[in-house]
Structures are given as C-alpha cells and as structure tokens.
C-alpha cells in the first residue's frame, strides 16, 4: 500500500513539471507585459523595468530562473498589480475560494447523497423519478446558466439576497448553491447507481433474512459499498468545483482565486496567470492523487493493478 502511494506521488512530479513548463511557454507567447498600457515610457526606464522583471534575459534563462524560483515556492511579482507578489495575491484570495468550494461541496454531498439513497430505496416510484429528474437538471444546467437564473429569481425578484459581493454571510448562499446543485445532480446519480448495485447483492438479502430493520440494512450495510462511486467521483468533482469557481466568482463578483485567474488572463498579467494556473493545476493533480489513494484504500480489489 505504501509502495503504491510512493509510486503515485513520484508519478505526479513529472506531471507538475510539464504543467509548469507548458504554462510558462504559453504565457511567454502572449504579446504584452508590464509595460503594455502605460504611457510612452522613456527608454532608460523601460530598460530598468524590464531588468526588474527579468524580461531582458534570453528565454531559456528566464525559464531557468522561473523554475528555480518555483522550487523555492516563489511565484514572482505580479505584472499588473504593482508591488505585490503573486504569492501575496494568492494567499489573500485563496481562503475565499476555499470557503466557497467547501460550502458548495457540502451542499452537493448533502443533497446528492440524500436524493440518491431515496431514489435507490424507492426505485421506480415517484420519488425515484423526481430525484432522477432533479439530478438530470443539475447535470444539464451549467453553473453560468443556473447562477444568473438564481440571481434573477432570488436577488432581483424576491430581493432576498444581494446579487453580488461577499461581504455578508448571506452572500455565501447563492454562489455556493449554484456551484453545489450542479454537482449534487452527478452525485445523486452515482449514489443511486451504487446503492442499487449493492442492494441487489446476496449479503443484503442475508441481513434482511436475519431480521435487520430496513434502516439498518440501508445505512449500515449498503451505504459503504454504495458510496464507492461517489468517492471515486470526488476527485473530478473537486477539480470541477475549482474550475467552476472561475465562472461563479466572475458572476457574483467574489474576490477569490478564480476571479484573479480570469482577470489576469485578460490583463495579460503573465506571472499572475502562470501562478494561479500552476496553483490550480497542482491542487487538481494532488486532489486526484488523494482520490485515487482513497479509492484504492476503500476498495481492495483495485489494488491488484
């Protein structure tokens, strides 16, 4: 088991390296930099600025120094936000995004698992159809459709919530709900499928024959196996929530990491873009790894690969 984990962790290092390299060269291919929108800058000052950001060095040197800084955890200064380093900006924005993602995930799991279990236990009844249809709506309605619709309904017409902003605790509701409901749909489907498969097995029949109550059968015996597909989905789900936050934070004007990423792309703020992209990529890779490990730990059959 430990060998498996060690091997997988080692395997992610080349992946992260590739991500860093690709991101770096992509941003270097983009025209524009810290001097883009400024007024006409005299030649000496331009030289000084370029020297500060290291832009006057040949490309391979820039790459080498960037990679060197990376290893030390330094993501460089931001091009557009003067005097602030990328590390600073990420550190400021990250808690916001984590909070958003966390609440969304909690909503997704709570609603999804409940719906899934209800649908599986009452298969082919109206509960099943209701749950499956709701799940389908969640899958088919992307965040950028659901978000504005929720804002239209609850913020503009019913005036219960603010349409944007992150200042009050109430502001958490609409964004997290938007992000969470979509994944609740997927999780509901997976839970339903997993539970149905487990409930048809012999050991469930044995438990019932031995007189266990239905609640006991479902929650104590079946749930563990039934949740397996959900656990294996958690990796992609969290990755999806992270990338979904780009859109959500843009719609609801939330000062999180996603918004930084999107605006930095448009501002041609190379270091910030690479920094955030790299951060997200690392996070996603590590989360997938964790999900894989969790899955293998829970399901011994998977270890024989």
């Amino acid at each position, binding site marked *: 088991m430990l060998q498996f984990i060690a091997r997988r962790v080692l395997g992610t290092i080349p992946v992260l390296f590739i991500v860093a390299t690709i991101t770096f060269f992509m941003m270097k291919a983009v025209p524009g930099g810290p001097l883009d929108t400024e007024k006409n800058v005299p030649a000496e000052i331009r030289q000084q600025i370029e020297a500060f950001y290291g832009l006057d060095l040949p490309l391979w040197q820039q790459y080498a120094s960037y990679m060197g800084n990376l290893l030390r955890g330094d993501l460089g200064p931001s091009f557009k936000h003067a005097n602030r380093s990328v590390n600073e900006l990420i550190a400021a924005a990250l808690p916001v995004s984590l909070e958003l993602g966390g609440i969304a995930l909690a909503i997704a799991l709570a609603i999804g698992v409940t719906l899934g279990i209800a649908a599986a236990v009452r298969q082919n009844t109206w509960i099943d159809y209701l749950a499956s249809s709701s799940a389908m709506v969640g899958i088919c309605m992307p965040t950028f459709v659901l978000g*504005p619709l929720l804002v239209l309904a609850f913020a503009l017409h019913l005036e219960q919530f603010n349409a944007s902003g992150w200042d009050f605790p109430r502001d958490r509701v609409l964004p997290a709900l938007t992000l969470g409901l979509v994944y609740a749909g997927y999780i509901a489907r997976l839970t339903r499928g997993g539970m149905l498969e487990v409930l048809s097995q012999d050991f469930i029949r044995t438990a019932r024959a031995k007189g266990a109550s239905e609640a006991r059968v479902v929650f104590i015996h079946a749930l563990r196996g039934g949740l397996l597909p959900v656990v294996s989905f958690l990796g992609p789900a969290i990755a999806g929530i992270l990338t979904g936050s*780009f859109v959500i934070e843009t719609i609801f004007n939330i000062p999180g990491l996603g918004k930084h990423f999107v605006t930095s792309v448009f501002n041609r703020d190379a270091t910030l873009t690479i920094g955030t992209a790299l951060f997200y990529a690392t996070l996603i890779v590590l989360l997938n790894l964790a999900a894989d490990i969790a899955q293998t730990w829970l399901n011994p059959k998977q270890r024989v690969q």
Partner: protein
Amino acid sequence: MLEAAQAAEPGRSLWQDAWARLRRNRMAVFGGAALIVIAGLSFFGPLLLSHSYEAQNLVLGAAPPSGEHLLGTDKLGRDQLARVLYGGRVSLLVGLAATAVSLTIGLLWGCTAGYLGGRVDAVMMRTVDILYALPFTIFVILLMTVFGRNFILLFVAIGAVEWLTMARIVRGQVLALKRQEFIEAAIALGLRKRRIIVRHMIPNVLGPVAVYTTLTIPAVMLLEAFLSFLGLGVQPPMSSWGLLIKEGAEMMEEAPWLLLYPAAFFTLTLFSLNFLGDGLRDALDVRASKD
C-alpha cells in the same frame, strides 16, 4: 406445425434489438424528437426568418417579445429569435465538430493500443494516464488567450480535451473483443490485420462508442459555452448559446428574456442529448439495463 413456428420469427440483429428497446424508452424518444426539432430550427430556421441575426436596430434597443420580434431584441436591436437560432447552429456545429475530433483521435488511439497490445499498448496508455492528470480546462483557457479567437482552434482545443476517455473506452472494448472466438477464427482463416480491424473490430466497438459520443456532445457544448461565457470562445456578431447567455446575464435586470430563451434552448438540448445517450446505453448494453 413446427415448420410454421420456425418460419414465423425472422432473426434480429443487435441493432434491431437495440432499436426496439430504445423505442420503448419514452425519455430517450422524447430527447431524440426534441433534438431533431431544435436542430431543424437551428439549421433551417434562419433561412426562413425575415430578420438577420446581425442586423442592428439601435432605435429599438432591448425590446421585449412582440409580434415583430418573437423573442424580443438585444441591446443593439438585433432580433433575438434569429440570434438564438443562429447561436444554436454554432453551438451544435461546435459540439459536433469537437466531438468528431475527439472521436477520431480516441478511436484511432484506442484501437491501435488495444489491438497491438504489448509494449505499444503500455506506452500509449501511460501517455493517456499522464495526460489525464493535466487540468485541460486551464490549458484550453490559456490556449484560447494565446492564439486568439480562432474558430477552428476552438473546436480542436475542445476536442483535444475529451479524447482521452474515448481512447480508454475503445481500448477496453478492443481488448475484450480480441479474446472472442470469432476473432480467433478470422486469424485462423488468414485474414490480414487491417481487414480484421476494419471489418470485425470496428463494427463491434461501435456500440459503446456511439453511446459515449452521444454523451460527449453535451460535455463539449458545455465547455464551449463556458469559454464563450468567459469571453474566450465565439466572438460577436457570431452568436452561440454560451455567448447569448452571457449577454443575457449582463442585461438580466432590464431584459430577462435575453437570458431565459437561450438558457431554455441550451438546457433542453443538453437534456435531450443526455436522455438519448442514456437510452442508447441501456438499449445496447444488455447487462446494464434495468430489465
């Protein structure tokens, strides 16, 4: 009497069986019908309309639905119905084209890896594993920023995101097929590799591939809409549903119809595709179906 009974039932192929089962699935049939209607409207509708999607009418501005403009107009006075239908064309085309890209790459990759086996297979699938770990969405965003808003690049980039799973599914199918006796028989009969692949492997792989293709199209359309929403995909005056939703969201307070109609069309299309895909999967895979 026995002869009559034997003569009564003509044999049914896999496809006829699957088609019968599909027809019985009401949601899938509904999905298929809705798709045909939407596709028809999108491709032929703009030809029949009196308004073009790009003709501006600045005097009118954003007007609610009326007799003249069935779905209202956007902030530049363009007819919303025309834009939604035209947007449908673009969204569906991008969806189909990107899916075709990922289908081609995935099919070829998976078939080759699965059939050749051994070291080639190992290398090819390791590559897939490594690529799988990369967060493609981020790359696509960067790609679209760097290389500008090239329409063809859009669906190549999107297609490149989705081929990995297709390759895995195809390879799995090919591996399973390789062990079947009819392939052994074909080899024993002396058929060349290429003929075996084309004539025997690919038709049998088509089942899961068809299912997964039908399920990839909505995923691809989602990605395109996501990119357009961020401003990185289709550019105005061309419209796609993603772009229309973005514009609608911006004008939500004053002109909610600009958001509601594109969103409805988009969601309905995704719904139909998903139901159709699910239905196909249940129809073709006897083990997975509920009956």
